[in-house]
């Protein structure tokens, strides 16, 4: 493929492509965390789950020679991490944030330990779908290479929005997240609901990890995550606990991250490293702009230890 010079059009195109490529792990981790937090618990351990998911997904994909099994394995590993977190948190006097930090370090440590032998080998990639076939411009084709997991993430956001509104499970999660007392009075078991919500949230984070090692950047090494898991948790607050907003926030964050490389591609080299900070600056600025000292945080689950 020969590059065609498309001038400044390259910038928005690179941002779009970057957004789609970079945002997927953010989408999965933030949707997982959204589910967990809606049930009234915070799982800060998702960074560790993400890294462990990346490792286990890569390892299983390599051993079975199937990226699909890799993703399944990552989800399963994430589920286990979530369940352990949820199970510990049900004990009296345990703080979910502290447990989350411990689980984060544990997940990363275990991943580095078991992942050593898989730094060299090459595992199969996850498939992508080309939505750019209509164009003859290679940059357009490259930007519109969309991974299946990204599409799944989008569908999941729609599904979760619907679930919280119109299914029993969704309403139960919201009830438990809003008022433990009301849940008990209804005969629900808040600990069980939170355990399951944390488990599923962990599984989603695991899938996000598999995307990292199996698609983009597409290999396993110890520096695979640069805090994506933690940032995704922050995005949930930014998205005000709405799954659809989580999706858009992840996309925005991914797009802002692609700003630096995109500008570089058209020859802007000054302040290159500053552009790396763009997503974080953008998130901070938007958080400040959309908050208020008057109202309490809108949409926050009331049982969350963050907002209590």
């Amino acid at each position, binding site marked *: 493929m020969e590059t065609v010079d498309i001038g400044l059009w390259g910038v928005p195109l690179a941002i779009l492509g970057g957004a789609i490529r970079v945002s997927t792990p953010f989408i999965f981790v933030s949707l997982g965390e959204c589910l967990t937090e809606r049930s009234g618990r915070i799982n800060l351990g998702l960074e560790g789950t993400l890294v462990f998911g990346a490792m286990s997904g890569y390892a299983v994909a390599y051993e079975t020679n199937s990226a699909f099994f890799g993703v399944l394995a990552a989800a399963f590993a994430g589920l286990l991490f979530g369940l352990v977190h949820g199970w510990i948190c049900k004990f009296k006097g345990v703080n979910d944030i502290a447990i989350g930090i411990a689980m984060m370090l544990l997940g990363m440590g275990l991943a580095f330990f078991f992942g050593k032998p898989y730094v060299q080998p090459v595992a199969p990639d996850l498939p992508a779908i080309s939505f750019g076939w209509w164009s003859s411009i290679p940059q357009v084709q490259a930007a519109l290479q969309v991974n299946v997991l990204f599409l799944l993430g989008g569908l999941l956001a729609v599904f979760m929005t619907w679930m919280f509104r119109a299914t029993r499970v969704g*309403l139960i999660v919201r*009830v438990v997240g*809003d008022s433990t*007392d009301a849940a008990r009075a*209804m*005969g629900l078991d808040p600990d069980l609901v939170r355990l399951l919500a944390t488990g599923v949230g962990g599984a989603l984070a695991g899938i996000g990890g598999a995307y990292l090692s199996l698609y983009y950047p597409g290999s396993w090494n110890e520096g695979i995550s640069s805090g994506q898991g933690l940032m995704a948790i922050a995005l949930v607050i930014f998205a005000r606990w709405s799954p659809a907003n989580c999706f858009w926030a992840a996309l925005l964050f991914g797009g802002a991250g692609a700003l630096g490389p995109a500008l570089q591609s058209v020859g802007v080299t000054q302040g290159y490293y500053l552009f790396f900070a763009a997503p974080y600056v953008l998130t901070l600025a938007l958080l400040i702009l959309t908050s208020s000292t008057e109202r309490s945080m809108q*949409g926050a689950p009331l049982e969350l230890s963050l907002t209590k």
Partner: protein
Amino acid sequence: MSGAGAISVEALHMTMRFGDFTALDDVSIDIPAGSFHALLGENGAGKSTLVKCIMGFYRATSGELMVNSSQVKMTDPRVAQQLGLGMVYQHFTLVPSLTAAENLVISRADAPAVINWRAEHRRLTEFMAQMPFKVPLDQPVSRLAAGEKQKLEILKQLYLGNRFLILDEPTSVLTPAEADEVLGHVRGLTEAGQITVLMISHKFREVTAFADAVTILRRGRRVGGGKVGEISVEEMSETMMGKAPETSERRRAATRQHPVLALKALRAKDRSGLKSIEIENITLKSGEILGVAGISGNGQMELMEILTGQRHVSAGEITVKGDAFRATRAEARRHKIRYLPEEPLHNACAPRMSVAENLAFRIFDADKGGRPSFWQDRRAMAKNASDLIETFKVKTSSPAARIASLSGGNVQRAVLGRELTGDVDVLIVSNPCFGLDFAAVNSVRDRIMAARNKGTAVLLISEDLDEIMELADRIIVMSEGRVSFETPIAAANIVEIGQHMAGHG
């Protein structure tokens, strides 16, 4: 859901212990189908504990429960619901961020896995059409007024098809007119044989007007009861308190009055953020009680929050003795301003800290001379706690118990005790007698009057007009976030005030 028709409930020899503390001691109670039964007792008598045991919310230490004359094991609230027993708790159990419709549907045991909202809405509207009172279905519950929430709680029980309703102080957050409306409808349902009701109340007026029979608890024991009409109000109150009630004669002493607190041209947002609070001028003088009347939700809560510094003021000024006042702790201490906000457990306490610690909130960071101190004086805190518990008759298993474990009325007393110790120049109180038994009501009002007589300036925000008429020297009415009327007590006329409260003055 159970079949149609009211059901009977009988509790036999119920005992409930929390650690060493016996909250309920061998209590039996019989409630025949279709009757309206009242449960009376002073704060901390064990009323809530008894009904929570009946509902399976607590596992009684011993005792038996009969529903429709057959014995049942009440192991968790779900069992109670299957049998058709439902309860409206003293604190709301609606989920605040869910809409009324969502709250109703999800509380059903057979809530469908996928909810077809269009069909559910149609069914809910049909259900509402048969009900004596209405509640907006599409609003999040957090936006409903207290009266609407209470109605929704009762509607929820009927919607669930429950035939035995327990109401724990259902009217403590309602105005007398609202209370009569709600209870009248509930009474109608019992007379029609559709439900049986067990109601906890502190208001004799409601008991004699609506109930068939009463049971009276005192310190966890059943000490009396009988048919309403055969037992007089005096007997009831005597049995409840264990002695004849003292009728206190509150005297209004002559005081020297000079302006202390002034609010000028205040502007702030209300709770919903949509409407505004606009107060042109309120002046509070020493040695007087200024009553702020109004129907709940007309800006009284916001006024309280402005004065405690919980709400941002966009324009105007507050002055205390001529100095600008921004409700900081230092300013409140310097000017000796004290507060008793509504729902003191949430607004004036750290619920998980001990009673003793909560009682020390005004003194823990100052030494005897009032200078800032670095070390806590544990001994002074313990003495402060035992003094206050003694003088204000706070019932607690120990000063080290979490304040959240106290009964509603006792939290109120503890906070009032804390706020009224030492010199107080300004006292700002909001609905000080919500949920208190009548003896406690009397003692709280006595203390407020005594503070006034000593020269304290008292701002009394209350939804209970009788309370204001009884205590205030001067009355202002709030309506739609504004002061709409002012009158000295001598010229006060209930009808006129009522009209201004309702917004057509």
